[in-house]
């Protein structure tokens, strides 16, 4: 019996699993003509399983493949299985969903500050791959430099890696420390993605620096 949910389900084929660190990897799959806006996410699950998880799309709007950035979670019911997939395997997904995008008007007129913790950089990777003339800065918070997922994608003059466990990044400390210590263009639109605590703290700092709520866009992962 078809259900409303199953009607939305698509089955794709894995093209590649690209390991980035011990616990983080990119899943590349057939795009199946999926139309999406950078910043949106998919719900992903294994065939014959009812467990699905949300992952922001990592690839760009014009790429002929679809990618998600996955961090293996201890006891994670989906991520643990995703890392064992091989090219040719099937994968189910639903979507795209979400409103964490950039409007055409803003793309033409605004500057952007993208602030991410960990795999929260995925939608920003998609933004940068999709919009070549965008005026942006990426602020990526991780523990060590190995977690600088996809850093080569960004214009290095516009990419700030904040590391807390080593000093190999461009800034030693959290992204929130960076926000406190640096002058920010008050006209920028700020996109925050990752864990809720980072988002809350960054929101407070931005408020004290005069940013209005309308300038701040958020996507909380957990």
């Amino acid at each position, binding site marked *: *019996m*078809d*259900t*409303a*949910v199953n*009607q*939305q389900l698509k089955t794709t084929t894995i093209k590649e699993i690209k390991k980035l660190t011990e616990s983080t990897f990119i899943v590349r799959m057939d795009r199946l003509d999926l139309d999406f806006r950078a910043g949106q996410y998919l719900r992903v699950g294994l065939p014959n399983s*009812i467990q699905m998880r*949300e992952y922001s799309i990592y690839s760009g709007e014009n790429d002929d493949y679809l990618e998600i950035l996955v961090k293996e979670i201890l006891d994670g019911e989906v991520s643990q299985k995703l890392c064992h997939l091989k090219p040719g395997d099937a994968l189910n997904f639903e979507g795209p*969903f*979400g*409103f964490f995008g950039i409007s055409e008007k803003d793309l033409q007129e605004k500057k952007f500050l993208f602030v991410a913790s960990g795999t929260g950089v995925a939608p920003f990777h998609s933004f940068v791959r999709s919009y070549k003339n965008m005026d942006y800065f990426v602020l990526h918070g991780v523990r060590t430099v190995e977690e600088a997922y996809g850093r080569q994608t960004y214009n290095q003059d516009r990419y700030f890696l904040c590391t807390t466990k080593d000093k190999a990044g461009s800034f030693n400390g959290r992204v929130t420390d960076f926000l406190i210590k640096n002058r920010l263009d008050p006209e920028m639109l700020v996109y925050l993605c990752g864990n*809720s605590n980072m*988002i*809350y703290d960054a*929101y407070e700092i931005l408020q004290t620096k005069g940013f*209005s*709520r*309308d300038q701040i866009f*958020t*996507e*909380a992962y*957990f």
Partner: protein
Amino acid sequence: MNQSDSERISHVIEEMGYRKAVSEEEADLLGVLSCSVRQKSIDKVYSRIAKWNKWKRKKSLVTFVSGCVLPADKEKFLKLFDIVFQPSEIKQLPEMLSQYGVASSYSVEQLYPGLEKREIFDFWQVDPDYQSGFYAYVPIQNGCDKFCSFCAVPYTRGREVSRSSGEIVEEIRQLVNNGYKSITLLGQNVNSYGLDKKGEEISFAELLRKIGRVTDESGKECWIYFTSPHPRDMTDEVIEVISQHKSLAKQIHLPLQSGDERVLMRMKRNHSVEKYRSIVDSIHKLIPEATLFTDIIVGFSGETEAQFENTRKAMHEFKYNMAYIAKYSPRPGALSARWEDDISNDIKKKRLEILTDELKKHSFEYNKTLIGKTLRLLVYGADKKQGYMTGLTEGKLTVRFPSTEYSLKGSFVDVKISSVTPFAMEGELIPDNTQKAENIISYGAEDCI
């Protein structure tokens, strides 16, 4: 939403030759429409089917479940119920029932020779068996694309789908012509109407305008409501249209969920408190007499005292007439169900009490301004208080008045308010005024608190 679904499912079942049983115990066929918004509702489904399955040991009984059913629940339900189906699969219900050997003279081909089943049983085209002769629910939209982190509806009802505006307006026209006096447009996000069919279907504001025009021009008195809108898609145009049509009820249900920006971010509501405030400002400016209702969740995952305090302040600021306040309960399938439910039940209960007190304060103040005024009511029936009838104002405020004239049920009457409590009012019936619309005393901007 489930009431509207049940009216259509009832119609299909009655078309098969079934009649409503006097009591649950006497039924041969029992079903339940589940709701996935909160775990508590699903728990009730499990408790009910446990009871029915005990009865099945002693009698012949067929059970079904429909409504919002998550894939995980569906797997469990399949083991407990005889039939599990989505509302959109209603066309298959007669066949499913016949497979369970229930005696029925029903045959799709006999009833509708030459027609495709799909055409007949498209869910929205099924005539509902309205549960009342004077108020009705009309679905205009199904599903949700918003993916709030606390809610599983997008996974159970699927994406937003708008019903044809022609079909909706026709259903309203028939209801109004048949003397219905209160009609509620239903959808998970009613004001997202048409967004799934951009360019092919009209917007929610345009739909409201058409409905308002049809109802106003009918010359009959009828109040048109809608629930629930999402603040993200609420426009000034919608509020303007409500202000321009007499039949569009001056009552807005606008879910807030939380008055704290951080909690709204975590709930993935995709709007700010500021956006919500601007909508309320527009309502006050364009429809000053409108009553305001809301939904609020207390004790959401990670909600701090300071964040809760912002919700209390928001309740103070927006001065709701009614709020449906729920203690957060994680719903399997929703994103937040994987986050820690770290607020104790005692704290949730306390926060619920604080907000209820805040609500009472404002609703009481508002109701007090109505003492001595004459309000138009739609009478719903006998009140719990002996010798009284009860009804709702256009703003959905409860009023009771001394009367044993049960024939007033389903009629408009005017009542002069004599006393009030936070959630109800009492007054005297103004004689010989049923069905008259001219004598309504509207309470204007200066009366609003």
